């Protein structure tokens, strides 16, 4: 209880509120501009969070970007028929038809209302379940931690699309990159080739910038040049918002989508990209007006938007309690936790309880603030939907280089980052996703440390991971998840072809 109150008081400061408001706006902007993503927004903000007053403030700021970005993604989905984020694809199904009918404001209102309700409910679920789960897993030893890291790596299959081997190679490449440099256990240098450049290895921050942010800039700028900056027509925002009756009519759809998404969010690897389709289909199936879906159904917009914002809260459950990411964005957040000295997982609620609850309360408040920020700023943010990429690209690049250097002040890491950028381009041509690489890099130290500890404690008995019951259960769960991811991937590939 003390930790809960400390967490609540920690988050209730004017400083935190200002940070949250600004971060939500940043999230809305990066979410709504096609070509910028929530992940990019988080990575751009991450170096700046080093100077924030506390680690919890830093994480709350990053979560604000995530929440704002999820809503922001719907703005361009409705106005341009171009989803600002992957999780807003289903929003285009009904959001854009509504815009074509001249009902832009109505669609945006539904999106905001559904996003806030979905996000709030998921945050409450997070608040009430995370403490309980962490108590259940508080006796975990290095063996179980290792099994958990393996479970986290199973997310790779979830983000691999239709070829798991490429995902596995990506994950192993991430593990390999993290091996380079000094081994933290034995102090032995690995693959440094006797050069200072490789002696310290590559840390997470510059790698994230190269693999995700700079690679996105490179690809989007390339597309901009090839298309000579052509842009879609944007719909104008009218004045007729959602009525109270309409608001009531979409509540069942919001609750249904939130329920499904909350469940999906707790499963590592599935994420908002998949949840939105499942929720959209389910809400359509039980709707009294399924014929309106795809032609401008308010329920359709509500289902998609409640779903992607609910995911934010419940994807934090496995991250905070087990230390394993729920989706691609929470994988980046896991990196941010580590950079800020927060160790998410079973011990977080006992050793850093106040920080854990501050983050949870922060997420709850961010979802409330999103409603007001959405009401005030949606119109302004919508105006920058069509900002030319030639204005944004160069500034994002400068931000990335500044952030990469600022991370450790190391010249070597900036040089390595440029090398990783070249590799990232080659990987894009080989159709290998960079998210598994990031996941491998982030989870590698946790995996290796706990593997080595287990080997020391149990005299090198590698079968110990199958002999200890909880570890065995986690590994069996991993196998089940991998199998189900493969099935879901096939289903999603089918849905995307539709």
């Amino acid at each position, binding site marked *: 209880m003390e930790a809960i109150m400390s967490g609540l008081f920690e988050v209730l400061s004017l400083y935190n509120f200002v940070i949250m408001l600004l971060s939500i706006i940043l999230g809305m902007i990066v979410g709504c501009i096609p070509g910028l993503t929530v992940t990019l927004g988080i990575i751009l903000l991450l170096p700046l969070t080093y100077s924030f007053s506390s680690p919890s403030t830093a994480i709350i700021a990053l979560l604000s970007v995530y929440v704002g970005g999820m809503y922001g993604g719907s703005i361009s989905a409705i106005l341009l028929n171009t989803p600002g984020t992957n999780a807003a694809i289903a929003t285009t199904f009904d959001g854009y038809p509504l815009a074509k009918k001249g009902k832009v404001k109505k669609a945006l209102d539904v999106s905001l209302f559904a996003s806030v309700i979905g996000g709030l409910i998921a945050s409450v679920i997070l608040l009430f379940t995370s403490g309980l789960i962490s108590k259940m897993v508080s006796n975990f030893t290095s063996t179980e931690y290792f099994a958990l890291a393996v479970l986290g790596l199973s997310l790779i299959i979830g983000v691999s699309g239709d070829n798991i081997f490429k995902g596995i190679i990506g994950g192993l490449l991430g593990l390999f990159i993290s*091996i380079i440099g000094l081994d933290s256990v034995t102090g032995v240098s690995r*693959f440094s080739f006797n050069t200072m450049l490789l002696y310290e290895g590559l840390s997470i921050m510059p790698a994230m910038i190269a693999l995700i942010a700079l690679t996105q800039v490179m690809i989007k700028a*390339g597309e901009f040049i*090839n298309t000579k900056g052509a842009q879609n027509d944007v719909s104008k925002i009218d004045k007729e918002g959602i009525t109270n009756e309409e608001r009531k009519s979409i509540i069942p759809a919001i609750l249904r989508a939130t329920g499904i998404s909350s469940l999906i969010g707790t499963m590592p690897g599935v994420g908002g990209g998949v949840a939105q389709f499942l929720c959209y289909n389910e809400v359509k199936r039980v709707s009294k007006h399924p014929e309106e879906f795809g032609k401008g159904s308010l329920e359709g917009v509500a289902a998609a938007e409640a779903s992607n914002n609910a995911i934010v809260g419940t994807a934090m459950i496995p991250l905070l309690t087990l230390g394993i990411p729920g989706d691609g964005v929470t994988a980046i957040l896991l990196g941010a936790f580590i950079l800020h000295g927060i160790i998410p997982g079973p011990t977080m609620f006992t050793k850093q309880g106040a920080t854990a609850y501050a983050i949870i309360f922060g997420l709850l408040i961010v979802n409330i603030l999103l409603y007001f920020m959405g009401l005030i700023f949606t119109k302004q943010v919508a105006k920058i939907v069509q900002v030319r990429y030639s204005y944004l*690209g160069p500034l994002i690049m*400068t931000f990335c280089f500044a952030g990469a250097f600022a991370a450790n002040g190391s010249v070597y890491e900036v040089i390595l980052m*440029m090398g990783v950028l070249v590799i990232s*381009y080659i990987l894009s041509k080989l159709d290998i996703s960079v998210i598994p690489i990031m996941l491998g890099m982030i989870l590698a130290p946790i995996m290796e440390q706990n593997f080595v500890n287990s080997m020391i404690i149990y005299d090198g008995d590698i079968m110990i991971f199958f002999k200890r019951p909880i570890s065995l259960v986690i590994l069996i769960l991993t196998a089940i998840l991998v199998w189900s991811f493969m099935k879901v991937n096939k289903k999603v590939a089918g849905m995307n072809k539709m």
Partner: protein
Amino acid sequence: MNIRTNLLSGIIFGIFSIIFILLVPSQIAVPAFDNGGPSPRIIPYMVLGGTLISSVALIIQSLVFKKERIIIFDFKFDKAALTILGIMILFGAVMLNFGFITSVVIVLPMMLFVLGERKPFIYGFTILGGIGVYYLFIEVFNISLPAFGG
């Protein structure tokens, strides 16, 4: 040029893993004192072994099961992204040798030119934006960056 991504990935990462498996003995020394833990070579061997197995699986997928994902590499189209990649590397090189602001002043206009911008005020605005990023890190967030010297 059509890139058979499964086959090519399999070949590239297969060769990569074999080379690095062979390099393990020379690149990872065994500690002089036994701390009771596993050898520092075990994880690299597991990682590289896994990479080799996955690479072989990709090659089999491509050649035996004819499952392939083709990506078209058209230099006419891809030269834009490659040019931006070159500009990014140049930005990093200039930043490390001559400082962040120098890099902003020299390289950002090049990037704008490649992106097709010709209006002078956009150039001025972007350079000011880049310098603004520098002062944001230095003054607001107290994070050091090289200004002019490397």
